[in-house]
């Protein structure tokens, strides 16, 4: 089986598992909706305050959603005791990319949902540069969630450590994403930073992933 075929098989399997169990959808979507509503209550109700906090709310929600999604990266296989079988039958590179595509899709949808909710409830439509942030920010966070999700899920203790690892390491996505989602902020430096962040995390996560799969 070629690497591309393995990637396709892993990604397809991830989507099939999600379609069957709706694990990520059921855990992430209600969480995002609750987060946005509670943030509106906490920061509002003045429209000016809501407009000022809208961009930060979007990226804080996406960042915390990365933790929720990260728990599912290898969680199903570990629970069903099929992780070793998957690890043994697929090369590390294609396994990483297949899992990454699934996590990226989940985080991309989470970003779309939270952006739509914030745009409507906070009356703060995002600028065009927010799309760049959505694409590259979720790619960087997906790389992080995939690598750290496997790292923590395959451990025997301290599974709650995932949030403590992802949240601080996601700082650049939070900062650049917030700036790119704020109207009238010069987009170019932040767009470069976001793309660099995604590229570096993608490369490093791909490079260290085989070491995380070893017994």
């Amino acid at each position, binding site marked *: 089986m070629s690497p591309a075929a393995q990637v396709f098989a892993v990604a397809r399997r991830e989507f099939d598992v999600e379609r069957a169990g709706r694990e990520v959808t059921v855990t992430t979507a209600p969480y995002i909706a609750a987060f946005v509503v509670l943030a509106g209550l906490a920061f509002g109700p003045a429209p000016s305050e809501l407009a000022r906090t809208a961009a930060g709310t979007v990226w804080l929600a996406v960042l915390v959603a990365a933790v929720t999604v990260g728990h599912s990266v290898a969680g199903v296989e570990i629970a069903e005791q099929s992780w070793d079988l998957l690890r043994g039958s697929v090369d590390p590179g294609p396994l990483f990319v297949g899992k990454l595509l699934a996590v990226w899709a989940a985080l991309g949808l989470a970003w779309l949902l939270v952006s739509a909710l914030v745009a409507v409830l906070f009356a703060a439509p995002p600028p065009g540069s927010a799309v760049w942030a959505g694409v590259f920010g979720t790619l960087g966070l997906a790389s992080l969630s995939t*690598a750290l999700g496997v790292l923590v899920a395959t451990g025997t*203790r301290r599974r709650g450590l995932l949030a403590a690892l992802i949240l601080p390491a996601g700082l650049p996505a939070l900062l650049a994403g917030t700036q790119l989602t704020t109207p009238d902020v010069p987009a170019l430096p932040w767009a470069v930073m976001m793309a660099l962040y995604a590229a570096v995390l993608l490369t490093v996560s791909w490079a260290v992933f085989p070491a995380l799969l070893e017994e």
Partner: protein
Amino acid sequence: MTAPSRATDRVLTVAAASTSLVALVMALAVAPPDAVQGQAQRLMYVHVPAAWLAYACFATVLVASVAYLLTRDLRWDRRAQAAGELGVGMTALAIALGSIWGRPVWGTWWVWDPRLVTTVVLLLVYAGYLSVRGLSDDRGTGARRAAAVGILGFVNVPIVHFSVVWWRTLHQPATVLSPDQTVLDGQMATALLLAVVAFTLAGWLVVRRRVRALALLDHEPEILDSEPVRPLVVTAQAQP
């Protein structure tokens, strides 16, 4: 990779102690107080070297983590762990000293300043790095996971350093390594340089000794090039 040597430790101890003494005299007695900040500015001679040493430690974690993943030699992992521990301590020290310095100069212990926030986040990243070692009971697995986090965590280090350039911030921008060549008073610069050298030497010594302690915990004493410990010999003497 060379084995730790007690002779090198002795040289490092003497060098670190003497440099620290000279730096202390320069910082407290020779260098003038800042024209605006007064005596509080002297905290710079500890705050900046602590931050510098933290960066150096995190760079060591990166290099040692990559080396561990390539060689699977636990000696690299011990170097990464020792440097990570010292880096976390130095980051905490830099934050605490910055807060003490900020009180008289900014009028507050804490502000939501990009440099302060990113530094705290860096501390959390490397606290996570140290915690990852407890994910598994197996030594090799823990080392592998820690190496992965040690490499991923370094992404934040340049962001912390350049935060004072990229954002409008209360924190003073970089003076010595400034791109716009800001001039620092000669005596201040000398005191700061000496303090940086003293911290670097002391940090190097601490890491070496911690590496040796970790090796003992792994039941793998690192080879020392010093003479072996002589057995205690008790000789009985006849009473006159």
